[in-house]
């Protein structure tokens, strides 16, 4: 059983091949890391999976269905949610509203009951609020629910992004450098949180991260990307000792 399968994916920008013959798979409930030097094309891969970019060629099959070339909101509707390398929250809205917006794709009342404020609207709003509060609780943001997203400290903004992604009820969660800018303590807490939500929601998680302690600590399998191509794939120990990976990061050995 395979949840996400990518075959021969290509994307180039002008003359630059950002992603070249990319092959990749994810099994349900796996936690997989995608690493590589800066500019290797990791975020481009994420953007291709989530529909921000359209691939030049290749296929992306999620849950048995082709999703390459679909609009991002369609891909989200099928159960893929993500966070961003540079945080992209709805800055001028409250923490609670940020999470509520992500729940909109399952809005339990119609457009007309919104205008006429039928009883269905009020019960629906209550349900949306309860669901949103549940996610805020998991991410320990419930006492900041009325703050504007832009006023949160950095670490909490990162957590809110994950909470917001979770509110879309994904089966696959894609995290783009979730620990960037966090101190070791915060990173450790984040690792535990990621494990916790994976258990609780039966999530499959794919993450990009430069913090090797996090990647080696939580990922079950790791892909290494360099110049748009996979150069290695395997268990954390295998990757740690892989010659090509060390070369990609540190350069060739001088004899």
């Amino acid at each position: 059983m395979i949840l996400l399968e990518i075959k021969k994916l290509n994307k180039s920008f002008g003359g630059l091949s950002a992603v070249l013959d990319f092959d990749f798979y994810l099994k349900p409930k796996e936690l997989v890391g995608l690493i590589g030097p800066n500019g290797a094309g990791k975020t481009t891969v994420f953007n291709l999976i989530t529909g921000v970019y359209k691939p030049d060629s290749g296929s992306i099959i999620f849950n048995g269905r082709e999703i390459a070339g679909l609009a991002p909101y369609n891909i989200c509707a099928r159960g893929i949610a993500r966070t961003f390398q540079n945080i992209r929250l709805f800055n001028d809205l409250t923490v609670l509203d940020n999470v509520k917006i992500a729940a909109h794709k399952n809005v339990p009342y119609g457009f007309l009951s919104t205008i006429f404020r039928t009883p269905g609207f009020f019960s629906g709003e209550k349900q949306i609020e309860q669901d949103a509060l549940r996610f805020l609780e998991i991410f320990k943001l419930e006492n900041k629910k009325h703050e504007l997203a832009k006023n949160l400290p950095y670490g909490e903004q990162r957590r809110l992004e994950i909470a917001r992604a979770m509110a879309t009820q994904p089966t696959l969660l894609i995290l783009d450098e979730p620990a960037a800018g966090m101190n070791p303590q915060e990173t450790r807490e984040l690792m535990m949180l990621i494990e916790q939500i994976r258990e609780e929601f039966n999530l499959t998680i794919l993450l990009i991260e430069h913090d090797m302690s996090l990647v080696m600590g939580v990922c079950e399998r790791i892909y290494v990307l360099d110049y748009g191509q996979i150069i290695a794939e395997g268990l954390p120990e295998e990757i740690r000792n892989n010659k090509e990976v060390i070369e990609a990061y540190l350069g060739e050995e001088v004899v």
Partner: protein
Amino acid sequence: MQESKHKWIRFCGEVLILVALFTAVQYAITAGLLNMYYQINLTSMCINIILAVSLNLINGFTGQLSLGHAGFMAVGAYSAVIMTQFLGQPFAIGIIAACVAAAIAGFIIGVPTLRLKGDYLAIATLAFGEIIRVVLMNIDYVNGPAGVVGISKLTTWPVLYWSMIITILVVVNLINSSYGRAIVSVREDEVAAELMGINTTRYKVIAFVIGAMFAGLAGALYAHFFYIIKPETFNFLKSFDILVMVVLGGLGSTTGAIIAAIFITALTAALQSFPAIRMILYALILIIVMIYRPQGLMGNKEFSRETFNRIWGGRK
């Protein structure tokens, strides 16, 4: 239980205030306390509120800079007049026709132009507004540039007042819902919204169509109060007038739009004897607001029950 009972009492209280305001003005009109001068300004005020609140839905909440609002007003005005004056239908049919026609125009213009962003969208909507005006000038059926004269005065206070209230209610109810949050998320970060499952194009078009529809309503009310409509009435300066109200009130604040609409109408009335410096004052006010309050009078805040309670310092 207690909570919902409180809500009911508050709700009934608010309805009472609305009805009381309506009755007071209605009484003043029938008793002859309001002369024609005040009635004209009161009508402009209500029409401007409808225009500002509906444009604020597009510019303020959805964040799509539209400069073609007068165009939709024209579509509404002409549709209503064709119905009532040329085809002899009752005013209600005219109003419905105005709303439907303007909504359709909004859809036709919105679908292609809402792919554009920022300045490009502003230019495209400005151009579409002008196209509507020029097309009207060249249709002989509605007398071209001369316009339609002698429109019967059907915009009475009840029609005007309740149209305004319905406009405000629809916009407020829409914004304070999941659909409204989806609309606002488009303004905040379109890419992030799209990736959180919001079909951003759809919500932009919805906001645009609803905004256009109420502009059409305003057009119908305008035409049936002021006796005459010409394409020239709905030129891009009219669009700017509405935009000024929205920006002055604060983008994304319905109460701000209402306050600014009242303020601008009153100012215009006060300056009626010096029409030449009206635009200069407009410019000055805008410059001063932009310097000292770049977010507008209300920012994106609302003056709501909560604000009222806070100022009152009462319970909670």
